[in-house]
């Protein structure tokens, strides 16, 4: 049904709409990051589109793709009862150039969502009023949902008690063994396991 939306987008922005995809009433447009804000403003302001509800914004890391970080936005129009998924791809393998225009001036509700994407995936939003971490603490280094963030890297705020201090073993069985759970390796085996 909202194939109409994709048609309007293609008609208005032409080559800036890189790909489109429709399946079972789910419509996706992959767009040029430099036109991100203009496309968002168009989706919000055009009376036939009227996407007034920002549903979600998230980052997806594909480390083997050329623009590495995909930013995915879900929008809903309450009046027109239609949805669209908007994607764009930014950042090279070192996350250089992972920047987008902030759309908080179009949807104020995008404020915290953009902060979350910044915190988790490391995408910077130009013109965001308050781009700070929102889930992790300020002392945290790196962005945990980037695939280059080691799965077993923790950054405790409180130094852990030592076993001498506790007088008991603190190294309990992990929920996943080294060869289970996440495929890219866990903590190295302890010497007493050999």
């Amino acid at each position, binding site marked *: 049904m909202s194939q109409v939306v994709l048609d309007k987008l293609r008609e208005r922005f032409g080559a800036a709409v890189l790909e489109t995809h429709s399946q079972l009433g789910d419509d996706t447009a992959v767009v040029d990051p430099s036109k991100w804000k203009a496309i968002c403003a168009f989706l919000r302001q055009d009376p036939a589109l009227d996407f007034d509800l920002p549903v979600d914004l998230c980052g997806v890391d594909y480390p083997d793709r050329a623009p590495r970080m995909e930013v995915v936005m879900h929008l809903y129009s309450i009046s027109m009862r239609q949805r669209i998924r908007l994607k764009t791809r930014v950042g090279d393998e070192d996350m250089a150039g992972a920047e987008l225009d902030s759309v908080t001036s179009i949807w104020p509700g995008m404020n915290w969502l953009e902060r979350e994407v910044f915190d988790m995936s490391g995408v910077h939003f130009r013109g965001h009023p308050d781009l700070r971490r929102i889930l*992790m603490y300020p002392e945290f280094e790196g962005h*945990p949902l980037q695939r280059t963030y080691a799965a077993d890297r923790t*950054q*405790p705020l*409180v130094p*852990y008690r030592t076993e001498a201090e506790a007088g*008991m073993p*603190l190294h309990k069985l*992990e929920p996943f063994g080294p060869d289970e759970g996440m495929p890219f390796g*866990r903590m190295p085996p302890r010497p007493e396991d050999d």
Partner: protein
Amino acid sequence: MGDVNRSLTLEGSEQGFATTKVDALLGWARKYSLFMYPFVTACCGMEFMALTSPRFDVARFGAEAPRFSPRQSDLLWVVGTISQRQAPVLKRIYEQMMDPKWVMAFGTCASTGGFYDNYTTVPGIDKIIPTDVYIPGCPPRPEAVLDGLMLLQDKIARNERRPGVVKPRFDPAHNVAGLVHLRRSATDARDLVPALRDKEAKALAPHGGREA
């Protein structure tokens, strides 16, 4: 503390009297007046509410009164996942409590971090503060928590500070005969000869299968 530990005997009375040790008396008194500080962070809080409501009634154990000031409480209930971001808060609450103080790790997340094996979660509160009793379960049933509370009371009465773990009342691994096992080959002897299977089950059962 040497003087306090010696047993006190009173002279005189022909009607008889009780003798005890001061620390045993103190332990007995303390174990029924636990003022709790609920540090509830996650879904285990639902079981905690069940525990404190009349159906399971933690008041039977003299441990029902919550105090939302750490200065006035002796039992810290850590109920739920502790994230790295929350760890300084938990440590501070613990440090603000007056001695003597005890800590319960309620549920698997508080005890070990549970399956949150990543950047967000403290892998067990004992990495940060000393812990007296661990109650496994996701979430633990209120009965398991009451077991843990009785374990803690026993520890208090004995003036024992080593940690304790609540054991499951029923361990399915003990019921070997009732479980399916990996079949090593299509003609596994255990499937063809039931007597062999029974013999194996008997050997694996607790007490060498002498009971039952």
